[in-house]
């Protein structure tokens, strides 16, 4: 944003005022503006406003927390908060999160005066997942009392599904009363450690069928997925489905494979 004197008579002085909003810049910044005038020798001049934006409440190492681990693994991250506001006996008043079933947290005074710490823990019994949420820290800061922390929680699986998506590509419709092209593809499930069993396989689209083949019991399974093109009813038809493979492992109760095909 800028305001300026439009006409400056010879020998006179004017002003060009640049405005910076603290919430539109981050950290160390440098914002420039181009000034166009009728001076034929210098039609364009650039002016620059620099500075360093600081938050009222400082969070280190940052306002994003990434909690990643395997099933049964305890993962913990600590945030340190302090205030840049003068004459404030900074303190955290409460903490809340929309990830209450996935993480636990606690807060208290830090080592140094004026510092508070928040500890976040991933719930170790989380099945395989990747999810986002927030942790809101309510403080006694007068200017910015609520600090929102972005939290990502990830439990890595130990079952590898290859591929995680099957595209049957373009297939031909069947003539009236007949099925069209039939195509087969294979999904392989391998576990890097420990054994697992497959309890069930489901599909949510009748054009797909799946058959389990046990290759190395407890370790390696193959699933044959068959797609049968429908009878032609229109020019083109996309079919999509999801193969859900249920296991006996509480850390990875199911794995999913997306299926797509396009009949022409």
């Amino acid at each position: 944003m800028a305001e300026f004197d439009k006409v400056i008579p010879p020998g006179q002085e004017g002003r060009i005022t640049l405005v910076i909003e603290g919430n539109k810049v981050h950290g160390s910044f440098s914002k420039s503006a181009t000034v166009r005038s009728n001076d034929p020798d210098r039609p364009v001049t650039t002016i620059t406003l620099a500075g360093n934006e600081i938050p009222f409440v400082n969070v280190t190492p940052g306002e994003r927390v990434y909690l990643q681990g395997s099933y049964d693994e305890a993962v913990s991250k600590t945030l340190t908060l302090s205030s840049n506001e003068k004459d404030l006996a900074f303190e955290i008043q409460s903490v809340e999160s929309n990830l209450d079933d996935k993480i636990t947290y606690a807060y208290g005074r830090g080592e140094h005066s004026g510092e508070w710490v928040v500890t976040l823990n991933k719930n170790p019994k989380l099945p395989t997942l990747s999810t986002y949420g927030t942790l809101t820290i309510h403080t006694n800061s007068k200017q910015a009392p609520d600090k929102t922390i972005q939290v990502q929680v990830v439990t890595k699986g130990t079952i590898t599904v290859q591929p995680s998506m099957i595209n049957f590509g373009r297939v031909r419709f069947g003539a009236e009363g007949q099925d069209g092209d039939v195509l087969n593809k294979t999904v392989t499930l391998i576990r890097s450690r420990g054994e697992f069993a497959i309890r069930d396989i489901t599909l949510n689209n009748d054009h797909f069928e799946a058959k389990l083949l046990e290759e190395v019991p407890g370790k390696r399974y193959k699933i044959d997925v068959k797609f049968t093109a429908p009878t032609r009813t229109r020019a083109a038809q996309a079919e999509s489905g999801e193969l859900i493979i249920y296991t006996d492992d509480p850390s990875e109760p199911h794995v999913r494979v997306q299926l797509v095909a396009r009949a022409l």
Partner: protein
Amino acid sequence: MRTALVLLLLTVLVWPTLAQDLQPKIVIPQIRHDLGDIFELEKYEYAFVVRNTGRADLLIEEVKPG
């Protein structure tokens, strides 16, 4: 004849200088300012001084933040 030639020469030499004299001239003594530490939610402004050291009105046509 000689006088006319001298006049012509003078015109050719002096005219550009005169024309330049009738131009505006923009001088911004300080083109960069450091605000230092600024707080997140607040608004800050700074006025840059612009001088016209020329002989015609200086028109600021546009200030475009980049």
